[in-house]
C-alpha cells in the first residue's frame, strides 16, 4: 500500500501516471530504496476490470489450470516471474502450447524485478507482444494466438554493485562493467518503456517522520477518473488508454496549448529528442492532463512529462 511507503513522491507520481495511461515503466535505484515495495503496491492503485476483461483473463487462467478454487479472476493480475524463467515460460509455448507469464499478466502487470539479470534473448522476445498486445505461437502442430496486453513494470539497479550515483556510498564498479551492465537492456526494449524513474535513497528525516503518505485509495480514485476520460476519447477505437495510441492517433486526439508547443520545441532542440521520444512525451503529457481533468495539454504537463524521459539526454 502506498500509505506504508515513506517518501519517494516522484516514483509514486510516476506509478500513478503509468496506471492511469497504461504506460510501461522502469524504476532504477540503489538497493533498499523501495523499488520492489513500490512495485508490489502498484496493483492497489489499478482500476478494477470490466466484465469482458474478467472473462478474458479467467479463460486464460482456466486453461493454464491456475484458477484453483477461485471462480473467476476479479482483480488485475500481477505476475512477477523470477529472472531464471525460460523464454517459453515467459512468452508461452511448449509441446502442448500453454500461455506464458505475459499472457497470465494480460490486462494486468508484468513485474520484472532486477530486469538486467534476465537473459537477453528472453527480454528481446517481449518486444513484439509489447507492441501488438498478443503473441502468435507457431509450431509444427499449428498456430496459436494468446492475448498479452500487459503493463511492463521493471526494476533495476544502476550498476552491478548498486550504488552508482548514491549520495553517500561509493560505487565500486569499473566503468566498463557499468557500461556492460546497462547494455544488457537493448535500445529497442527501453524505447518501448515510456517512463524512466530514478528511485533515490530516502533521506533519514523522511524515514523517521510520522507524516502519513497519501493512501492508495485516493490515488486510485484519480486513476479511475482519468481512465473514464480515456474510455470516452477512444470510444469507437480498439484501444482503451493513452499508452496504446499510435502517432496518427496522437495527432488526432492530443491538443497542446501554444506555450506547451513552444516548450516541446525547446526540448527537442536542447535535449535532442528523437521522433519517438517526442511522441512518447506527448502521450505522457496527455495522461497528466487527463489526471488533472484538463482538455488541453498545458506547458506544465509537458515539463512534468519531460522529467520522466531523463534517459534521453
Amino acid at each position, binding site marked *: 500500500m502506498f500509505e506504508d511507503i515513506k517518501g519517494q513522491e516522484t516514483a509514486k507520481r510516476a506509478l500513478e501516471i503509468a496506471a492511469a495511461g497504461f504506460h510501461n515503466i522502469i524504476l532504477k535505484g540503489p538497493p533498499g530504496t523501495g523499488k520492489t515495495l513500490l512495485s508490489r503496491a502498484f496493483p492497489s492503485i489499478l482500476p478494477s476490470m470490466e*466484465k469482458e476483461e474478467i472473462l478474458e483473463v479467467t479463460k486464460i487462467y*482456466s486453461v493454464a489450470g491456475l484458477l484453483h478454487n477461485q471462480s473467476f479472476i476479479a482483480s488485475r493480475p500481477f505476475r512477477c516471474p523470477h529472472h531464471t524463467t525460460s523464454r517459453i515460460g515467459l512468452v508461452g509455448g511448449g509441446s502442448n502450447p500453454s500461455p506464458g507469464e505475459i499472457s497470465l499478466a494480460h490486462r494486468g502487470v508484468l513485474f520484472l524485478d532486477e530486469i538486467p539479470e534476465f537473459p537477453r534473448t528472453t527480454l528481446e522476445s517481449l518486444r513484439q507482444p509489447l507492441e501488438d498486445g498478443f503473441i502468435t505461437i507457431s509450431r509444427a502442430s499449428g498456430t496459436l*494466438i494468446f492475448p498479452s496486453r500487459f503493463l511492463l513494470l521493471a526494476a533495476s539497479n544502476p550498476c552491478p554493485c548498486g550504488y552508482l550515483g548514491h549520495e553517500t556510498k561509493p560505487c565500486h564498479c569499473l566503468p566498463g562493467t557499468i557500461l556492460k551492465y546497462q547494455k544488457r537492456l537493448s535500445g529497442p526494449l527501453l524505447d518501448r518503456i515510456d517512463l524512466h524513474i530514478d528511485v533515490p535513497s530516502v533521506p533519514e528525516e523522511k524515514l523517521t517522520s510520522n507524516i502519513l503518505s497519501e493512501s492508495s485509495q485516493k490515488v486510485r480514485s484519480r486513476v479511475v477518473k482519468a481512465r473514464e476520460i480515456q474510455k470516452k476519447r477512444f470510444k469507437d477505437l480498439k484501444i482503451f488508454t493513452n499508452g496504446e495510441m499510435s502517432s496518427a492517433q496522437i495527432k488526432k486526439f492530443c491538443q497542446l496549448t501554444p506555450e506547451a508547443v513552444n516548450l516541446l520545441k525547446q526540448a527537442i532542440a536542447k535535449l535532442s529528442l528523437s521522433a519517438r521520444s517526442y511522441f512518447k512525451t506527448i502521450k505522457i503529457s496527455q495522461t497528466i492532463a487527463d489526471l488533472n481533468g484538463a482538455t488541453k495539454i498545458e506547458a506544465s504537463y509537458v515539463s512534468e512529462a519531460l522529467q520522466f524521459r531523463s534517459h534521453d539526454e
Partner: protein
Amino acid sequence: MLAKIFSGTVIGLDGILIEVEVDVASKGFPGFTIVGLPDKAVGEAKERVRAAINNASFKIPDTRITVNLAPADIPKVGSAFDLPMAVGILSAGGIIKKEIHDSLFVGELSLKGDVRRVPGAISIALLAKSKKIKKIFVSRENISEVILVDGIEVYPVDNLINLILHLNEVKLISPFPPRILSVL
C-alpha cells in the same frame, strides 16, 4: 453396441468439440483400445475408467471395447476424456438406457468414481454454447467458473453413480443457475 458422446478439448485458449465414439463388441477377446492420437494421460484413462466403473458398482463389459476420439487428427491431451469414455462405455453396454445427444461431458475420474476438475472448463463451456449443445456436465470443482457462461444448462457431477442415476432419470441432478457478472 455403439455410443457417441460429446466432449471437448482446449487448443490454445479455444475449445474444440471432440466426439467420443465407443464400440462394445458382442464377441471377441476382452480388451480396451483408445485411438485418435491419445497422449500418455489419455492412454492411462483405460485404467481409471475401468476401476471407476467397477468401484461405482457397475460392470465393465467383458468383450472388446474400442474408443475413438474424433476428429482423429487432433492430438488429445489430459484427463478430461475419462468421464465421457465411462459414460460411452456404460451407454454402449446398455446400462444407460436413454440416448444422449444434447449433452457434453468433461471430467477426470478417480479410481473410486469421483469426478475431478479439469483445466480449461470455461473454454469448453463456451464451445458447447456456440455449438448449441444444451447441457454440460462438469465436476463440481469446475462449477464456479463454468456458470460464468450463460445460455447453457450446467450440471455439477460429484461421482459416476450420481451421474448414471441422473441419466437414467432415477434421481435427478438440478442444474446450476448462471452467475451474472454485472451483479458483482
